């Protein structure tokens, strides 16, 4: 069985999406389709499912030619599109019934199948609940159950874990592996989470519509063996060190992680780098095992061949000295927000100092955005105290707002206006004078490398550039504090890196940054964190402290995800004990 081929693409091309893609996938294992936004992942999935017809090339799925007989393929596979393909106005049971009807599952077989699937997905107690009222993680599991209803021989999952909390992600993987082990099912799934690659038996790396590489995850990172280091300095801040390392020709990538900088060296340049690094002063260098993400970034950076930019200079000199209220820029005590009887945020307290990058981490619906909107003065506080830039939000929300920049979820840009028109609009919205506006627009176009897109409509920009423009707009009035709400959601790993580099430069220049994210790896880039669940604080502290709390004999170096899951599970245990 395991030597069989489940999917084979032979020189497959599709206009605007795929270019001569060639691969074979073995049956009976989990394969991952990985690549940045716009790489062609969804197109590839749809081609395999017979939803699209390839312009050129042959596709065989389970030994069937998809072009000739898509119905035969569709009768043998399970497919979960992005956003899970559920009918939100039907209940859990009705969704299952519908897909069982459509897949031709007999009433008898259906009963035994439900008895397997419902407990496995934890949906047994929610059969009469409308799908629209399920949490993101439960929707995802229901979508999976619908795709598994007929025990398909092949399961196609298009970004099944996007926007879902880490606990649910882990459970999803457990379900998938159980099916693979029990029934010999083949799985192809696409993902934007690089840490998930390590869970796959086989990886296809897709970029710009081309298949760059295929192999086991270890084979990707093996190429980087001996080229990945953790560097820390006693003389300068981690961000200064990162900025400096990033400018070295030997360095492919340098990234602030916890208290140190993770560096990937160009092949054959390791000795040079050590001498270079030596000249930087009192420095500690430690070679570390490469992970898949290192390999992915290195591979894509070499592929895009953008070369080394002369450092990203986003920082702006802060014109006005802050009133020195002992450097505590944001101070929150017992913050609460109710919507009717629903308590969205409960008893949240924290402080943020000047120049700090402070992260709010939590699943969808944890209360991150509500907290944010209160701090920006967009939403009145129900009770508790919140001071931003020394101003009490209950009295001077408007005054505080002049000091802060806010980048909303999904980038609040005017998609019909050009880049330049957007910047002009935001300059006038912040009441900049003519000279100042001209200066800031010039700065934004240069610092965010938007000059070439000046006359492009914001709606036509690639996602990474939209993100840049939104950030530039939020910085028009040179704020002391920057609020970023899910700034990297849906943006590919390369653009995310670049984005964090800009954030680091800003923090280094003294801007205080608050950021919400559901990417666990991004939490490592923050100075301090607040982890939230169901509107409550679970923990606060530096990433290193958080992870250190969950040291276990079996897990010497827990990841942020381990820490997060342990916190959530601890909370659930406390609740069920109560």
């Amino acid at each position, binding site marked *: 069985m395991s030597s069989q081929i489940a999917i084979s693409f032979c020189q497959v091309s599709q206009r605007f999406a795929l270019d001569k893609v060639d691969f074979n996938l073995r049956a009976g294992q989990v394969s991952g389709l990985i690549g940045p936004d716009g790489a062609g992942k969804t197109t590839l999935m749809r081609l395999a499912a017979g939803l*699209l017809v390839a312009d050129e090339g042959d596709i065989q799925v389970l030994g069937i030619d998809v072009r000739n007989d898509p119905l035969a393929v569709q009768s043998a596979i399970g497919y979960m*599109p992005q956003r899970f393909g559920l009918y939100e106005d039907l209940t859990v049971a009705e969704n299952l019934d519908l897909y069982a009807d459509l897949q031709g599952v007999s009433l008898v077989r259906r009963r035994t199948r439900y008895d397997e699937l419902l407990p496995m997905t934890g949906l047994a107690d929610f059969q009469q609940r409308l799908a629209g009222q399920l949490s993101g993680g439960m929707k995802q599991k229901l979508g999976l159950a619908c795709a598994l209803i007929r025990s398909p021989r092949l399961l196609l999952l298009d970004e099944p874990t996007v926007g879902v909390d880490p606990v649910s992600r882990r459970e999803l993987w457990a379900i998938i592996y159980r099916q693979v082990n029990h029934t010999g099912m083949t799985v192809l799934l696409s993902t934007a989470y690089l840490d998930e690659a390590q869970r796959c038996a086989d990886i296809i790396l897709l970029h710009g519509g081309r298949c760059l590489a295929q192999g086991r995850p270890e084979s990707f990172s093996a190429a980087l063996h001996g080229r990945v280091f953790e560097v820390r300095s006693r003389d300068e801040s981690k961000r200064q060190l990162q900025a400096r390392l990033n400018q070295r020709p030997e360095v492919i990538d340098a990234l602030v992680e916890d208290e140190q900088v993770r560096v990937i060296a160009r092949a054959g340049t390791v000795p040079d780098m050590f001498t270079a690094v030596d000249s930087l002063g009192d420095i500690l260098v430690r070679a570390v095992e490469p992970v898949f993400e290192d390999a992915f970034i290195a591979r894509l950076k070499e592929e895009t061949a953008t070369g080394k930019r002369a450092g990203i200079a986003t920082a702006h000199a802060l014109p006005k000295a802050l009133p020195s209220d002992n450097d505590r820029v944001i101070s929150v005590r017992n913050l609460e927000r109710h919507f009717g009887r629903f308590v969205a945020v409960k008893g949240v307290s924290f402080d943020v100092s000047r120049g700090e990058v402070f992260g709010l981490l939590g699943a969808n619906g944890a209360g991150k955005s509500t907290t944010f909107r209160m701090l920006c003065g967009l939403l009145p506080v129900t009770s508790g105290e919140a001071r931003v830039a020394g101003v009490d939000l209950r009295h001077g929300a408007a005054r505080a707002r002049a000091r802060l920049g806010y980048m909303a979820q999904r980038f609040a840009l005017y998609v019909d206006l050009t880049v330049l028109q957007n910047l002009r609009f935001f300059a006038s919205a912040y009441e900049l004078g003519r000279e100042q506006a001209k200066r800031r627009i010039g700065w934004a176009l240069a610092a965010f490398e938007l000059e070439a897109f000046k006359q492009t409509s914001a709606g036509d920009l690639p996602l990474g550039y939209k993100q840049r423009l939104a950030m530039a707009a939020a910085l028009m009035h040179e704020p002391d504090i920057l609020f970023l709400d899910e700034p990297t959601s849906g943006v590919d790993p390369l653009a995310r890196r670049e984005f964090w580099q800009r954030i680091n430069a800003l923090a280094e220049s003294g801007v205080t940054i608050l950021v919400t994210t559901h990417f666990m790896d991004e939490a490592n880039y923050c100075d301090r964190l607040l982890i939230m669940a169901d509107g409550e604080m679970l923990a606060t502290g530096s990433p290193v402290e958080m992870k250190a709390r969950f040291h276990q004999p079996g897990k010497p170096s827990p990841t942020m995800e381990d820490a997060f899951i342990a916190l959530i599970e601890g909370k659930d245990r406390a609740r069920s004990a109560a």
Partner: protein
Amino acid sequence: MSRQSVARRRLLGMIRKESLQIIRDPSSIAIAFIMPVVLLLLFGYGVSLDARHVPIAIVVEQADGQTVSLGAAFSHSEYFSPQYFATIQRAQKAFDAREVFAIVWLKNDFSDHLRRGDSGGIGVIVNGVDANQARISEGYIEGVWQTWLLSYIDQQDLNLSLPLTMQSRLWFNAAVSSRNFLVPGLIAVIMTLIGAMLTAMVVAREWERGTMEALLVTPIRINEIIVGKLLPYFILGMGGMLLSVAMAVGLFGVPLRGSFLLLVATSALFMLVTLGMGLLISIVAKNQFIAGQIAIIVTFLPAFILSGFIFQIDAMPEFIQWLTLLIPARYFVNILQTLFLAGNIWPIILANAAALAVMMLVFLGLARHKMHKRLQ
């Protein structure tokens, strides 16, 4: 399980899903049942193309028995509510202020002129801004005047030469009530909304929410998707139709002179035409907003304006008259008005039904041809 029973299960599953969605979605219920009620009440009670209780000014420069009697004739007519003025200047002020729609001016030598048998003593001014209303009011004023004049001649026993009077009878709508004419036409508008707009929007919703993609990857056949979608909305639309007919006959007393079965049969035919249009729109429009807009522009507005439901097609410019031939509602409005007000006039009904049948085949055929299990 046999092939056929698997196919039947797929179709039933699809129909059940669609029906559940209709029941759970307040907006489908609103479009199918609440909107017909609102539209019917609005058109049944609010909009009337008849002149009734039109405010007019009567200027009496010199009051005597004749002017009082003529004034009473206007007061007694249900078409007018007169106000009295002593001078034409005052009346004109009220006319300019739009307090009155017309002026009947009885000059100080009104009775002298009357005795002499000429009409030089009376003048009428009508506000011509709303041409329709002006023509109707003018006619009614004329009517009141003629009736009064006849009885005057009768009473006075005068031997005056009478103008020749015409005896006319109105058929089919003897009360000349515009309601009897509007309400049947409204049913066509309501069914267009349910068939085209609702259908286009629910298919667009499936695209928007990504459920269509999941649906297309199952072994379901295109015909099963189409039938599964059409059947529940067909039933919903016929329900809206029956509700409208019940209201028209029960509440507004519109007569139904033709056969009820024939009404149901032709309605079913029209329903299929609008469902075909809805499906065609949903192939082009993949989001609800655009689907709604297209449906309003290409189905609802033409059904409202160009179907002869309110505006007489014969009175339209020739080019527009040709254009109305493309509007399915035009044929159905014709059938409805015939069945309600005249009866089973077979030549009219068959000709219009044939046009609808052709349109049904074209729209449903095109929709079937254009829909396939691919995303492009």
